[in-house]
């Protein structure tokens, strides 16, 4: 029996998220007194795979297959399910990101396993299996019991501190049974931005709202982001106005993020915006209105005009770098 954790790779490399996942899975395996098995799909070199052992994987299964170069939800689900059955998985852990959200629900049906989506802590009990998750877009939480024999959890990004734990797991190369009837999608026109810090990965995010006055006033946001190694984001009115692209929109109906530091410049903090950022570890708010709801969610606040405060902020950061 095992806890199976699916670790995605990015051009053959793992990210912090992968290690959070393996670490989280190993803690659940400890609670259940069973093994942790990590699964990687794609072309990942042995020395990279071995890194998963540093976060307490007991065994690593690598699937590298020509047909799996693009994400086909049905085919990937079939591979993960095949390995879950082979390894007697009691719990399957996946990231709560684009790929995880695409696969976990399918896997839930395939394995008849109840899904706990977007967990950020360990289960409070394994008998009954009880997890704690956000509901109503973070306005509340629920304690949820998963009643099925197998459980699937998706782990929210940047929510679990990983621990180093040296193990030297065996690596098994596995050839999945992939029928042709599984592949019903074709992928084309892949567009990737390079050299840009991705909003979902960023440790620091600098975000602008209507208080920035117009789309051509964004230079201070970009400069501060550059200095802090941060991604840029915006509130909904900003993307609705076309000042910034919609993929920067952060909030309930846009991106939901949880960076270590979120800087909100000229954002009033509507309830829908807060739903997208409230899991951030530290929130800084700059706004002219002292009664703006953003200050209720913030850790540090400045009542002032972004046009004055941001240049000072940039200067002060330059001084410490």
């Amino acid at each position, binding site marked *: 029996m095992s806890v199976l954790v699916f670790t995605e790779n990015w051009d053959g490399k793992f990210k912090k998220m992968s290690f959070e996942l393996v670490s989280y899975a190993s803690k659940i395996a400890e609670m259940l007194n069973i093994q942790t098995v990590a699964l990687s799909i794609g072309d990942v070199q042995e020395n990279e795979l071995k890194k998963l052992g540093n976060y307490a994987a007991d065994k690593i299964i690598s699937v590298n297959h020509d047909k799996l170069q693009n994400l086909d939800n049905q085919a990937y689900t079939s591979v993960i399910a095949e390995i879950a059955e082979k390894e007697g998985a009691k719990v399957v852990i996946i990231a709560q990101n684009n790929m995880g959200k695409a696969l976990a629900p*399918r896997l839930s049906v395939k394995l008849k396993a*109840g899904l706990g989506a977007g967990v950020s802590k360990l289960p409070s009990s394994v008998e009954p299996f009880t997890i704690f998750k956000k*509901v109503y877009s973070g306005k509340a*939480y629920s*304690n949820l019991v998963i009643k099925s024999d197998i459980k699937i959890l998706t782990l929210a990004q940047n929510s679990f501190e990983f621990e180093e734990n040296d193990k030297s797991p065996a690596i098994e190369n596995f050839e999945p049974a992939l029928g042709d009837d599984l592949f019903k999608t074709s992928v084309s026109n892949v567009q990737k931005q390079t050299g840009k810090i991705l909003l979902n990965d960023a440790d620091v995010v600098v975000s602008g709202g209507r208080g920035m006055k117009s789309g051509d006033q964004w230079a201070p946001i970009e400069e501060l982001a550059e200095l802090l190694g941060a991604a840029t984001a915006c509130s909904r009115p900003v993307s609705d106005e076309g000042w910034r692209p919609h993929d920067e929109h952060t909030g309930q109906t846009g991106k939901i993020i949880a960076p270590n*530091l979120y800087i909100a410049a000229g954002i009033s903090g509507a309830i829908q915006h807060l739903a997208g950022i409230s899991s951030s570890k530290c929130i800084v708010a700059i706004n002219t209105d002292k009664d703006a709801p953003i200050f209720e969610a913030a850790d540090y606040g400045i009542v002032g005009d972004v046009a004055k405060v941001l240049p000072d902020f940039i200067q002060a950061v330059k001084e410490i770098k």
Partner: protein
Amino acid sequence: MKILICLSNVPDTTTKAKFVNDNTAFDTTGVQWIINPWDELALTRALELKSDAASSIENITVITVGGQDAEPTMRKALAIGADDAVRIDAEPKDAYFVAAQIAEYIKSNPFDLIFSGIESADYNGSAAGGMLAEFLNIPSVSAGSSVNIENGQIKITRDIDGGTEDVTPELPVVAIVQKGIAKEPMIAAMRGIMMARKKPLNVVAPVEVEALTEIVNFEMPQPKPACKMIEPENVKELVNLLQNEAKVI
């Protein structure tokens, strides 16, 4: 081509969450119910596609699993422009239960393109669409930010880390969609509201399905400590606190 849109009936996004019965049930007092925002965008996009004759869309159906209290939301979807509506008469127990109910309906009433919003504003599971596709053994494309029909084929642009790619699936397909597929949700016109009353809203009996999860109770988030205010002339102090107290830069 026939389109189905899975709708959730959810509290308006500005609603404050409150609970009753020892925090085991959502307090619906005074709550306004709306079409789940992503489902509303899916409906909007479906109507945009239908308005182009070349896309040859014959029919747009909306479906939900819910009690009679979900009907005003279904009527709203009909007023916006859906051709007919289906309500599977059961309390939605969990995403698995909901997806199983809708899958049963689709098995005897096939569709070519099935839309599902990327998540519901209440349980935030991002689950029903993918589950539905697996029950039906058909492809699903997730995180779709644009859906087009070209020469009878559906092309879905989906978000991947740091970019996008186009996916052309075999039909039928479940398209799990997010912001971007339509700009603004379409609003019902007076004529639409009048017509909606005459459009069919079929009530279907549920099948027996066991839910796999159960909510024990709800909790409110821990209150945050008060925000530390810094004078606007003293941004240096803020940077100092971020570096030495919060240790985030």
